[in-house]
């Protein structure tokens, strides 16, 4: 293997995949510039809570903290927060115009890199267009908002009054597996996120009644069979998505749905509803695809491995829905491809 010292790589995006790629490339002696548009490292997963009950449930959210610490400590990684790539020129290497926001506006600089890794992540589906009263009913939140609540508060609080919910519902596949939206994909992570959170809530407050509306429960984790058995004991599972949500007294939410067992319309009232919103292609994917000449698929996700022959790679949820462990595995694999590319050059 050739010595990679002196090679320069730009990693765009400092979420799970970007951090993993940056730290692994840095270990191999490559100079990494990590470009992140927000003002913190960690990406979306940095907002996810630990869902361990009596033991770890293997969601992987804590691994983001570890990756951030390694990247921050690595002398080989130059971190550019509040920054974005504005233009790309191909001239021997990849000449990127990186714009960094600062107190007095923004400044831009042109820098040359030997290869680029796009790890720009996903955009969560906006459920406002669904008949679920999101942003209208105070106690309808998304799974990402519930994750953030667990992360920041270490407890679940109804937005309307800060009280712990007693009757919670999770509605799956909001914006996923949806022909009307043209979202013909499973977001892969929401069953795991929702059911782990549901069990976490029950472990903290065993009297909480939880109902789970779903199409198909997806397998996650190694001991899924056991986990799923417990879930079915603790949680009311209804294999149907509610048609509509209506307001109910005391900031409650009434769900109307076709009950598959009785084959009749039914309704239930909850004091908090969690919408498991889907993973959709990053809003910038289109712009990145044309700027870097990386193909995007018909759904708008970037091609895995990007445009590897030209030194532009893509990794993580920019390429499609993936869990935290999958994004790490994917980034590791992409680093291997980057190294192979650099060795040739």
């Amino acid at each position, binding site marked *: *293997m*050739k*010595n990679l010292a002196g090679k320069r790589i730009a990693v765009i995006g400092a979420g799970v995949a970007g951090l993993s790629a940056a730290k*692994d490339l840095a*270990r*191999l*002696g490559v100079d990494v510039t990590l470009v992140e548009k927000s003002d913190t490292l960690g990406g979306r997963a*940095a907002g*996810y*809570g*630990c869902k*361990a009950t009596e*033991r*770890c449930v*293997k*969601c*992987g*959210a*804590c*691994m*983001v*903290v*570890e990756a951030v610490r*390694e990247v921050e400590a690595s002398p080989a990684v130059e971190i550019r927060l509040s920054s974005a790539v504005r233009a790309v020129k191909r001239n021997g290497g990849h000449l990127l115009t990186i714009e960094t926001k600062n107190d007095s506006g923004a400044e831009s600089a042109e820098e040359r890199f030997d290869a680029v890794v796009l790890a720009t992540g996903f955009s969560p589906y906006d459920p406002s267009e669904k008949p679920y009263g999101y942003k209208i009913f105070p106690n309808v939140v998304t799974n990402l908002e519930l994750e953030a609540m667990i*992360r920041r*508060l*270490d407890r679940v609080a109804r937005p309307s009054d800060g009280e712990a919910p007693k009757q919670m519902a999770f509605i799956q596949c909001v914006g996923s*597996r949806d*022909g009307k939206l043209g979202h*013909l*994909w*499973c977001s*892969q992570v929401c*069953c795991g996120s929702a059911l782990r959170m549901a069990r976490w809530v029950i472990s903290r407050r065993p009297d909480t009644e939880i109902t789970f509306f779903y199409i*198909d*429960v*997806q*397998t996650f*984790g*190694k*001991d*899924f*069979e056991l986990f*799923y058995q417990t879930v079915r004991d603790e949680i009311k599972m209804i*294999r149907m998505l509610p048609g509509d949500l209506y307001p109910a007294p005391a900031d409650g939410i009434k769900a109307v749905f076709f009950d*598959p*067992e009785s*084959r009749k319309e039914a309704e239930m009232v909850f004091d908090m509803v969690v919408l498991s919103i889907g993973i959709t292609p990053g809003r910038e994917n289109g712009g990145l695809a044309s700027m870097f000449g990386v193909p995007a698929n018909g759904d708008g996700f970037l091609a895995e491995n990007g445009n590897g022959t030209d030194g532009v790679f893509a990794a993580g949820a920019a390429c499609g*829905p993936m869990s935290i*462990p999958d994004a*790490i*595995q*994917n980034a*590791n*694999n*992409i*680093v*291997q491809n980057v*190294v*192979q590319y650099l060795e040739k050059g």
Partner: protein
Amino acid sequence: MATDLELKDGGVADNVVIIGGNACARQIGEKMEARNVPVVYIIRETAAGIQPGANVLEKAGVTDCRGGVGDFTLSVRQNGKRFTQRAGAVVIAENGDLRPDHEAYGLDLSPRVRPLSEIANGDLPDTVRPGESVAVFLHGLARESNPATTRTVMNSALTLARDKDLKTYVLTRNLKVAGNGLEKLYRSAREAGVVFVKFTWTAPEIRCSHQEIQVSFTDEATGVLFTLTPDVAAVDEILAPSPAFKQIQAAFKLRTDSAGFLQADNVHRFPVETNRKGIFAAGPARGLLGEHAWTADAGAAAEALTTVLQGKAPDSAHKAEINRNQCVRCLTCYRVCTYRAVRIDIARPRVIPEACAGCGVCAAECPREAIRFNPYEPSAVSAGIVDARLERSEELFTVAFLCGRSAVPAREQAFRNGWNAPPGLFMIDVPCAGSISVNHLLGAFQAGAGGVLVIGCHPDNCHSENGTLHAKSRIKELQNIFDKIDHPRDRVVSASLAANMDAGFVRIVEEFENRIAGFGAPDK
């Protein structure tokens, strides 16, 4: 073959040993050979499919693995001969057993009842007639399936319906579409005429005679009763550890998951690490199915191998060291070391520094206190606590031992969030909660602590696997002593959290401080 791999100082073996010869193993080998790293395959069967010219030990197995990263010595058995093989790093990509789960449905395999892979390969019974025959996939009914198997089922069903014109049914519970392209494949299969029947609170009844298979069920959506008499039925295959896994596990002293795959179910091992530095598990060896997963693992393994062979993997700052004069060779350290970093040299245990991850569990467990783990020696730590007590004027003085993997990052984030530590609290950062011995705890109480808190990682989330459990058992030990001397047992408290639980950290510390305040300052 010459290597231009940049070796770490003192490294003696610059090669990779790959256990297994499947597609995942071969991809790893090809990637490493492409960068001029010598590769040796050790394969239980013959070397079919491996590129010509590769260095292969076929019909061979490993019986023992000693040493640390950069310098492993494997004992190999081949054709009754025994010899040793050096390795800089090892990756295990051994095949598991794909077992058809027909028994779960009370079926025997027959020309009509076939494992999924045979149907996927187009191997159909002669009795199947295009346009007339019925095919049924019994999928994920006996146990929850996975996207890789669902992909094979849907591809096969699509082919049977579209190309063979069979009436094709997929009977399942939860359809596992959590894989790229699977929702679209599901829709294509339905458009091609495949009927998916999903069961939630009922299950199909399956009967089998010499003449026919009969599958009866009530469609849950309509309540209508159906009976199918398929000409061919495909049953799922379950990936299980092969019998060789046990032997590999014993030879390499690997931690396994609950099923027996060769990687503990611990997020810190993902994707391809094991409990031993420089030994990796990839693809089927860690329980993965599917071409996509194997390819991704092969890349991840090649990346990990490259990193360790260059000595670029992160290493711990501190290493345990055994004092030979104090050691009575009880081998406690050998038993408790998750990383297999203790070797026995002529009946004497010795720490292999390259393998040691610096968790300190051995030092805390050693009944003779014969293991030095600087700078976390109980005497040094206790001296620090005494100084801290002198610096504090608060009546109530408390001590917290914090695991550097979880509690320390959580505290750092809590500080960034604006948290102020209680002024009477002295916090000590340690590499692992398992490094806390009874002496450390007693040292804190002797220095005047009214309470001692130990925070480790959640069970199954410890880098050293059992650090938190070790800490908890020592705390119990001390609590039993407290019971005997009529001292409140809850003055010593253990808790667990993860690195992203800054809010949880604050809650745990507050609860602890309140509890100890309730007991008041200890008697002088």
